[in-house]
């Protein structure tokens, strides 16, 4: 009897320790760097000053704000619309197609920076393969419309995945009941499925909006003379010694993120329905729709995949051919001129990304557990903090790390740790959100059952909750890994001599204008990420266990 109490006491202490460690990590690797870089915005000439903020609403800046707002929202809107179509396509197709669709969407997320923009220019530039080579037109592709187009394309995959998760929360029986009561396919879609998607739609829109506002690489390449807040901040940072001003401009991007977070949280709460639930995922709902409606729904989805394939195709061609002047000349030159340290860089990318993915997933799951399952109010605040790195442009999160970790006792500059932690903590919200979704679908009674049988909190987590969290775990792992491999903004400032990574090499080639080489490096990167994704996805399918907590009670 005493031994059991002693063990329980130990687990309790351990439990508290883990909580403290989590909070400490978030504080150290998220709050501290952000505060450090924001502090810059309050400095001018070495002392505290508000000059940067005074000029922040200058007419020039106001124009930038307006530019940013409308391109970001337009792009987010289009992404969301297409993502809704893709989700509906999933709902209307059989289980086999659904699985395939989800995987295809995840794979289309493998898109190293600049690949889309590059492909776009190669195809539609002033001497683009299509506009010039095929149609003989010499159009100017640079401008806000291209920014919106490319940002919209880039956001579709992410929004779709978010909506897929939303779909999982729809009750199968409500759909059946609707059909049972005579509602035709389009009515069920309108009255049952669409309202259920609404929170996810809002959530996706605002998250995308935030990401678009912070995106600086797309407008730089295809924006032409159309400038946005993010590009302005970045350019000021790298071409003037006026870091403070750049930091101040970045701070402007925060309010939108707050709104995004608010809607996201509302989405999570509304996902509660009553009684035992069977999800509509992987089931053929048998909804029949009129032909024209099916066309409207499936067309954007199909187009998206065609465009994605085209994009990969173009980059592949561009890696092995000289595409200047609208003609194609095959060559292996780019492969040959690959800088010798590129392979080592790739190795480092993979290593750091894997470690970061593992760390992020574990830490993220734990944080989600404490926040949602254990319902500790303090952790709600912590969860909000983990969303912050997404809000500010990656470049500033990176600079924050430089500011925070360049002196003793936290001298992490020049080590692998600073890169890994940057990857890890920038993406922390991904596993957290995934785990949140899983938790919202698990009945609380299984926790209570475990505790009732004598398990401590930790034991409950380990034995009972870990298995259903599998999917969330693996999906998050893949996402964080992929994003880390492709990340450029944040780490541009924290790579150090001898420690460059593959994405930076790509960034450099693009910066030097060596588009052929960049294409080749992009292809390498895509292939490697793809291979790892494949391995991890296979792993997920093989070992998939059935989720007993979600099965129907009796036949």
């Amino acid at each position: 009897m005493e031994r059991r109490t002693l063990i329980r006491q130990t687990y309790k202490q351990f439990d508290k320790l883990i909580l403290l460690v989590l909070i400490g990590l978030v504080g150290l690797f998220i709050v501290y760097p952000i505060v450090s870089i924001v502090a810059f915005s309050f400095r001018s000439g070495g002392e505290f000053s508000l000059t940067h903020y005074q000029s922040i609403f200058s007419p020039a800046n106001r124009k930038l704000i307006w530019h940013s707002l409308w391109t970001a929202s337009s792009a987010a809107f289009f992404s969301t619309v297409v993502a809704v179509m893709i989700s509906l396509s999933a709902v209307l197709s059989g289980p086999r197609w659904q699985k395939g669709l989800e995987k295809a969407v995840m794979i289309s997320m493998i898109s190293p920076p600049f690949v889309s923009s590059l492909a776009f220019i190669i195809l539609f530039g002033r001497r683009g393969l299509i506009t010039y080579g095929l149609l003989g037109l010499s159009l100017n592709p640079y401008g806000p419309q291209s920014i919106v187009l490319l940002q919209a394309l880039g956001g579709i995959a992410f929004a779709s995945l978010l909506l897929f998760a939303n779909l999982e929360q729809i009750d199968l029986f409500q759909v059946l009941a609707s059909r049972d009561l005579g509602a035709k396919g389009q009515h069920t879609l309108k009255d049952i499925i669409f309202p259920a998607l609404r929170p996810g739609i809002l959530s996706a829109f605002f998250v995308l909006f935030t990401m678009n506002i912070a995106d600086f690489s797309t407008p730089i390449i295809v924006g032409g003379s159309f400038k946005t807040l993010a590009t302005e901040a970045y350019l000021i940072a790298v071409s003037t010694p006026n870091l403070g001003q750049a930091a101040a401009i970045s701070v402007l991007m925060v309010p939108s993120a707050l709104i995004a977070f608010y809607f996201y949280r509302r989405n999570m709460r509304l996902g509660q329905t009553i009684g035992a639930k069977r999800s509509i995922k992987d089931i053929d709902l048998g909804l029949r729709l009129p032909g024209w409606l099916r066309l409207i729904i499936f067309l954007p989805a199909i187009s998206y995949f065609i465009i994605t394939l085209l994009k990969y195709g173009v980059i592949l061609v561009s890696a092995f051919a000289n595409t200047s002047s609208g003609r194609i000349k095959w060559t292996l030159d780019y492969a040959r001129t690959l800088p010798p340290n590129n392979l080592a860089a790739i190795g480092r990318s993979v290593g750091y990304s894997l470690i970061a993915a593992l760390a992020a997933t574990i830490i993220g799951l734990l944080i989600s557990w404490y926040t949602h399952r254990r319902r500790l109010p303090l952790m709600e605040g912590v969860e909000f903090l983990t969303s912050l790195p997404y809000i500010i442009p990656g470049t500033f999160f990176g600079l924050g790390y430089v500011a925070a970790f360049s002196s003793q006792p936290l001298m992490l500059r020049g080590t692998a740790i600073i890169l890994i932690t940057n990857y890890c903590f920038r993406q922390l919200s991904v596993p957290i959100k995934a785990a949140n979704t899983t938790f919202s679908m698990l009945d609380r009674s299984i926790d209570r059952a475990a505790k009732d049988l004598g398990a401590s909190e930790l034991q409950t987590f380990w034995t009972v909750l870990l298995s259903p969290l599998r999917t969330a775990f693996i999906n998050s792992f893949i996402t964080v890994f992929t994003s880390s491999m492709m990340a450029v903004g944040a780490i541009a400032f924290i790579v150090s001599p001898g420690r460059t990574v593959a994405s930076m090499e790509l960034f450099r080639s693009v910066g030097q204008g060596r588009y052929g080489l960049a294409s080749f490096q992009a292809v390498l990167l895509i292939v490697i990420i793809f291979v790892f994704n494949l391995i991890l996805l296979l792993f997920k399918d093989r070992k998939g266990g059935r989720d007993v907590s979600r099965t129907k009670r009796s036949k």
Partner: protein
Amino acid sequence: MFLELNDLSKMYDEHNGVRSFDLSVEEGEFVTMLGPSGCGKTTVLNMLGGFLRPDGGEIILDGRDITRTIPEERPVATVFQNYALFSNLNVIDNVAYGLRYYHQLKKSAARKAARKYLELVGLSDYAQTMIYHLSGGQQQRVALARSLAIEPKLLLLDEPFSNLDAALRNQVRQDLKALQKKTNITMLFVTHDQEEALFLSDRIVVMRRGEISQVGTPKEIYYQPQTEDVAQFVGSMNQTLSIRPEDLTLKAGGEAVIERISFYGAYTDYLVRQDDDLILIKSFGKQPDWQPGQAVTIEKE
């Protein structure tokens, strides 16, 4: 016959499913499909609802073959086990749903007609309430009203009371039976609770492992079980003596010994050992002050 199920079958694999299911139901009849988990009762229900396509056989409802008709077009309504109420709509819109889509009424006309059915289940005051504010019992009634509203030719109920507490269950059973008599709608009910089946049904179909064990009125099923498992499943049966516990009685003194006494208030169960057999006796009313170990004689009542 109003409803005919002819040679209906659906096999998921070699062992699980429904085989050669034959049943005829009259209009206004209340038929229960009764059996343990996995016996196939829900499979039959789903085939009737149109959510499952039979491998073979046919379903004829009021003269029409509806075997291949999609659920949207069947004059059949289902009350699901978890009620499946539309959580984004309020009570009246839930009930009016079928009226709008099956009978194609306009929204306002549908709502008006729906009020009648709300009254029927006694929830008139809750028309504007959102679903998540209702209790389990209230939700169940809304589900019922919603299905009744389209005036289906056949109403299917999939263990609709299993989520309610015992006290409530009794009440809703009474209400359902009264409702059925009043509306005269043909109802097909699925349950594993034999008391429920006995109380509600005009006829019971006892099922086991995908096949029909016996079809009959409650009294027939209870007093004339045709197979051993029907006898065991509906009520209890002493196998060695082939007699129901309530048909036996005990007298003090004798060769048998009481092993266990279970007091249930209105009745008491005795487990008695006689010649290596364990016999169950059910006795109603006030009992003598016996203890386990008491010597008794078993007699027929």
